[in-house]
């Protein structure tokens, strides 16, 4: 009974500690977004600016996703496990925010947070920002798990995943028929759903490419690269196939206007997400076996 009670106390203390880490995150957030000091440090009304709520709280979800990758080993002592959690937690938060800063600089290089979120309350911007935050947190989590507590492997894999994600983001303008910059200015939610489906799909796909056994970092990275290129080959097949299976009919002459409707964005986003999930299955879930059991 005493042991069970002790473990319950440890969990309660850890819950408090994780809350403390999230409290620290508020201040780290201000480093990257100095203009939101008031929103982050004081009590705010979430209904006042839904775009900002989406922007800030998606990051909170992201932090939780990343924290879920850290394991606490109580057998090595309570204080040591707390220390391990705080070191890797701060590292994870820092990596996450830097990644997010870089990714958002690529995605929103024509826009800025103050104008779109604080002044224009742009929901499309907020939604895209939320998708970015969730995907980046998921990918940071994947990297943290694969790094297996090695700082060198973590830094190499983090850079690697960031490059691949950056390239994937650039691909959006090639495969989507929606004009990104124009529709963001128009606060178009169709773009938000389309981009959201795409980036979540791409995140799942990239994450799954990194999810494999590794004994040698160079061989591991080669395998990831090959899987990524393979995904690039398979994904268009699914996109084409799904478009043929579920064809859409746009009114001639009004195609551009109809594409700006919410339905089109949802259709495109679902198509991207489905294609990416199926691609991830074909890239990672086929086991061809080896010749060795036969010999």
């Amino acid at each position, binding site marked *: 009974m005493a042991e069970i009670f002790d473990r319950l106390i440890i969990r309660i203390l850890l819950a408090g500690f994780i809350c403390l880490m999230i409290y620290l995150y508020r201040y780290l957030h201000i480093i990257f977004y100095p203009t939101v000091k008031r929103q982050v440090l004081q009590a705010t009304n979430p209904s006042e600016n839904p775009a900002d709520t989406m922007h800030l709280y998606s990051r909170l979800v992201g932090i939780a996703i990343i924290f879920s990758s850290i394991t606490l080993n109580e057998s090595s002592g309570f204080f040591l496990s707390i220390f391990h959690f705080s070191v890797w937690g701060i590292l994870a938060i820092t990596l996450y925010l830097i990644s997010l800063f870089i990714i958002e600089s690529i995605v929103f290089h024509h826009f800025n947070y103050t104008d779109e979120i604080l002044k224009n309350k742009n929901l499309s911007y907020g939604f895209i920002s939320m998708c970015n935050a969730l995907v980046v947190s998921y990918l940071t989590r994947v990297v943290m798990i694969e790094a297996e507590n090695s700082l060198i492997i973590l830094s190499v894999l983090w850079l690697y995943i960031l490059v691949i994600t950056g390239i994937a983001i650039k691909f959006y303008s090639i495969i989507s028929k929606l004009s990104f910059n124009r529709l963001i200015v128009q606060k178009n939610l169709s773009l938000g759903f389309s981009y959201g489906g795409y980036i979540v799909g791409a995140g799942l796909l990239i994450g799954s490419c990194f999810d494999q056994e590794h004994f040698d970092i160079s061989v591991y990275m080669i395998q990831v690269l*090959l899987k990524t*290129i393979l995904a690039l*080959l398979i994904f268009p097949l699914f996109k084409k196939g799904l478009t043929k299976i579920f064809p859409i009919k746009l009114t001639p002459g009004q195609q551009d206007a109809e594409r700006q409707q919410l339905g089109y964005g949802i259709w495109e986003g679902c198509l991207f997400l489905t294609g990416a999930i199926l691609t991830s299955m074909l890239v990672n879930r086929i086991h061809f076996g080896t010749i060795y059991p036969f010999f």
Partner: protein
Amino acid sequence: MYKFFIYSMLVILYLGLAKTLSPSEMGISYIQNEKSFSKITDKPYVTFILIDTHVTGFLIKTYYQKYRMISGYEEVEDLILRSSKEFTEKNLDNMGLSIYRRMHGQEEFLPLPPGSLYIDDPEFGQWVEENGEFTWHFKKPYKNFPRYLGWNDFHPTKKFYEELVLSKRLGRPFYGLNQEFGPEGSITQQAFPHFFSDERRKKMDLKTLLIEYFKENF
């Protein structure tokens, strides 16, 4: 057209990188035909015995062969080699036989019983008279060779050796006086039970295959 070009370039890039960088493509040598064995090893006194064959792939097949490489003075090594379709099919009837031999710089490609290289070589053994018949026995340092060669209790007789020499001269494969070597040979089948196991040879019809699938999965 532009998209098709980009896609084709991606396919080429993937195939090229996979061929060059993938670990699965590294470390397995390829043999086009019997002459390719020369590149596998430069040991002066060596014999390759075919001990297993395997095919993978759905539409495009990849052929593998497993060889036991015995070089007179060194460790015995089992090698997996990728082989051409023609070479694999040509050697389906040569299971358990020595496919390649090299001694004193001379190469032989005729399929012969394993150990042909050592018979009558005084460096490796001697003829011993048993019940009025001369049989070949390895010297003490090579006492494990019959096991490596898959001979078990078999000892070649003088007559066996004479037939072997005659076959070499005629360029005709030799499977033993009573066909005891090769896929139908009793000695080979006893020496490599894994290859000849019922499990490996079993060919299932669709009905049996489905019944086994449902038994295993549900």
